[in-house]
């Protein structure tokens, strides 16, 4: 009896160890596509993430990932309170833009108190404000051939530049904004100053901080490692982070 159980447990452990090699197999990772299809089909494309009251906000919103890009270029921009900073909007657009912080602040604004869900499992509720990404893309005249919006960031992790990408469904979502303010104050360096993406129906790693350039593309193949984002390229995280 004991030997049989030991055999079973031993076999189980061996099987699980053998499973390690299947961890990044395309078959498993294909589930990401299935979840994206199911979620978009079930909830509808414009379903809103929950918005909260001011009294429901986290008392302290932790900083995660890069807390300061610490490059000479970024330090120079930060020292000038980002008055020299410009957001480049280019790629498949009719009118490439170079927008100052003041210009972004003068566009129609959206403010929202939303919950930030990290892929690790923690959540924090904060208030974000900025123009809708849709407004900026319309200003630039998005071309018909564009399929994805890529966000190039000022920070690097392990030498690789941070970037992220979303498709047009998320890009045109009402709660997708380019936030320059958090909790009624100008965005801090730790939280992504001067500009960070909020894409509220996706996990935290999609919310690119230190955004320097917004690029419209028809394919993600030529960018970074080709998987659509820093964590997707380096660690095999799912490109669709709605679950």
């Amino acid at each position, binding site marked *: *009896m004991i030997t*049989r*159980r030991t055999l079973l447990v031993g076999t*189980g*452990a061996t099987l*699980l*160890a053998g*499973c*390690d090699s299947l*961890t*990044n*197999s395309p*078959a*498993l*990772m*294909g*589930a*990401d596509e*299935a*979840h*994206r299809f199911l*979620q*978009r089909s*079930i*909830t509808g494309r414009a*379903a*809103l*993430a*929950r918005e*909260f009251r001011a009294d*429901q906000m*986290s*008392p*302290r*919103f*932790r900083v995660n990932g890069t807390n300061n890009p610490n490059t000479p270029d970024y330090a120079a921009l930060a020292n000038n309170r980002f008055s020299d900073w410009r957001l480049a909007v280019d790629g498949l657009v009719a009118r490439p833009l170079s927008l100052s912080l003041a210009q972004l602040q003068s566009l129609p604004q959206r403010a929202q108190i939303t*919950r930030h*869900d*990290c*892929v*690790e*499992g*923690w*959540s*924090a*509720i904060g208030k974000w404000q900025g123009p809708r990404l849709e407004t900026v893309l319309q200003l630039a005249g998005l071309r018909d051939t564009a399929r994805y919006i890529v966000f190039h960031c000022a920070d690097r992790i392990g030498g690789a530049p941070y970037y992220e990408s979303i498709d047009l469904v998320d890009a045109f979502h009402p709660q997708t904004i380019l936030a320059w303010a958090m909790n009624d104050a100008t965005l801090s360096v730790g939280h992504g100053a001067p500009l960070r993406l909020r894409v*509220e*129906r*996706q*996990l935290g790693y999609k919310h690119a901080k230190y955004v320097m350039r917004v690029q419209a593309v028809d394919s993600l193949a030529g960018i970074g490692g080709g998987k659509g984002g820093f*964590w997707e390229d380096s*660690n*095999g*995280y*799912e490109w*669709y*982070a*709605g*679950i």
Partner: protein
Amino acid sequence: MEKPRIERRAVYRHRLFTRIWHWLNALAVIVLIASGLMIFNAHPRLYWGNYGANFDPAWLELPGFPGWLTLPSYYSLSGARHWHLFFALVLAFGLLAYMIVGLVDRHIQRDLRIRARDLRPAALRTDLKAHWALRFHDPHDLRAYNIFQKLSYVAVIFVLTPLLILSGLALAPGMWPWIADLFGGRQSARSVHFIAMALMTAFVVVHLTLVILAGPINEVRSMLSGWWRAPEEDHS
């Protein structure tokens, strides 16, 4: 026919669909628990309410589960998510198929229905005594589940597994927000998901213990071929 010999009656106990579903679930549940423990290790603290992070008070904080319990066995949140999100679909759609097939062919109504007479204290006492004597089946109806089997199967199939699926979906920022609201917020849903996993683990442990006590070869064979043999003493 020439000389009398003791025969053990065999009964066809589990249909093909039930057997396939059972083994698919066995695989899915093991993978989901092991990969879930790895996901938990990425932030091994649990909270109540809508938010919860390092500066907020946790109701449970654990050192993290060892590698031999997790999938993959090395630290990899993204790798664990690949396993978890794939087998979540296997579990959820398998359960849906089971419910449809089981209701249509009346397996659920016939074999899992809990009747009032099953729940009478005297009946429960009789069944409990039989359990302590390691007799788990009704000699007059070899195909029938006993009341404790029915209660635990109904609880796992119709309450616990749907609760795991729903609390898991509540964690997804792309899903409807009202799912998280049902649990009192996303971090509450994460806590419920973890507690439900612990209950599922307890079910698996009890289930395997009873399989071993009931005669593992006969039991496992019945879940492979469908045919289960009655113990000899009941051949009366």
